């Protein structure tokens, strides 16, 4: 492959990284399925640990689904940059003339499409097993949609800071979980409130605002972190 003489546009750079990550995931479907299976298993643990009382499960249901989604996202974040770090393509990204935050945003988009979106789609099924009322069933995908986008973005900062470190996996969770608290609080609480007939608007607005904030700031922080951890 000869290097192109003219510099590809911004959109091409974004699309190339996105397509590459999706293609890699297509070749190794296990990487996509693992977090999803993890999500399902963790959600199953709670009824087994707590007991089959339907009323109790209905109360804890939204919280359990949210915690499971958060942990599943953490699980998949570790490989966000580490595979690219090992095969050297991360270095290529750092050297490319494209703005790094844009490429990072493409990586985050791919990560969300592969780990966040499946969780959003699977949540109603898990919700049914917890006997959640219809209003909550409807609320969960909305809060999870906005929440998982934020989690992918904040998580990318942690993944960038820990790339190439020994025992980076546990460290990543230690760094990111406290930062993810607001998303968890608003996502889980407003989903739970919807069971009582309350509107999820307050929670959804907050999650939307948080999503916008992380969309504007996280790619830059991640790019800075990648440059620091790759010298």
């Amino acid at each position: 492959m000869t290097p192109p003489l003219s510099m590809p546009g911004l959109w091409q750079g974004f699309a190339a990284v996105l397509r590459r990550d999706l293609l890699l995931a297509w070749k190794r479907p296990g990487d996509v399925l693992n977090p999803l299976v993890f999500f399902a298993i963790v959600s199953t643990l709670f009824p087994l640990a707590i007991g089959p009382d339907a009323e109790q499960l209905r109360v804890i249901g939204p919280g359990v689904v949210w915690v499971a989604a958060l942990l599943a996202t953490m699980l998949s974040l570790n490989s966000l940059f580490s595979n690219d770090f090992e095969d050297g393509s991360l270095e290529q990204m750092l050297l490319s003339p494209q703005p790094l935050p844009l490429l990072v945003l493409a990586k985050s988009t791919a990560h969300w499409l592969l780990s966040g979106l499946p969780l959003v789609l699977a949540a109603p099924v898990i919700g049914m097993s917890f006997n959640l009322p219809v209003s909550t069933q409807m609320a969960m995908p909305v809060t999870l949609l906005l929440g998982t986008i934020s989690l992918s973005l904040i998580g990318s900062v942690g993944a960038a800071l820990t790339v190439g470190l020994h025992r980076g996996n546990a460290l990543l969770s230690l760094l990111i979980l406290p930062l993810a608290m607001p998303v968890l609080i608003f996502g889980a609480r407003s989903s739970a409130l919807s069971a009582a007939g309350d509107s999820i608007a307050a929670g959804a607005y907050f999650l939307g605002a948080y999503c916008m904030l992380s969309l504007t700031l996280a790619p830059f922080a991640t790019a800075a972190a990648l440059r620091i951890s790759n010298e």
Partner: protein
Amino acid sequence: MWTFFHKLASPPHFYSLAGRMTPWFAISGTLLIVYGTISGLFLAPADYQQGDAFRIIYVHVPAAYLSMMGYSIMAISAGIGLIWRMKLAHAVAAGVAPLGAWFTFLALVTGSIWGRPMWGTWWEWGDPRLTSELILLFLYFGYMALRASIDDVSKADRASAVLALVGAVNVPIIHFSVEWWSSLHQGPTLIRAEGPAIDGPMLYPLLAMIFGFTLFFGALLLMRVKSEVLFRERRSKWARRLLSDGAH
């Protein structure tokens, strides 16, 4: 003005200046804390609602205030270090983190001890301020863990600075979300629209404790930053000369 900052940022100058300032901070801080403790424990009258248990706030409030102050100092100096590539600022951030974690721990435990007779439980999840403090402790732990896992000092400085800044953006959001999440607590005691709620013989020990703790924190910070500066400069001539002169 600028020459003052340049001189301050020069490691040997800072090192000797910090060494000379530490005793003043430590002595004045200790005196204020001793005064605050004696008058807070024995001279201040008991609160008409909380009885003698309110005396715990004499240690809880300064610790809680410094735990947040510590994070602000950490984030601001991390930002300065990242933008202007100033080693001293990174040394401040590195030195303040363990102190902030200790004071957060202190605020958490004293808050919990205060809560036991007041709420009848050691831990009240409904209290937004204690919950925020707990998350703040986790943030400090994450920061220190990241620092500890990177061997190269300069890399650790900058990586943890990015984390501190991301955390600083999040701290107000965390606080707000925890407030929203629940509200079961007495409101802020010291600063209220209609003036301080506690006054006279109850207020003075608290002010003495806040200033005393701050000065003591300052002394500890100077000691820690001194070590951090020396560690970063361990290969320099002045560090070796310092050692051979026997003046530490």
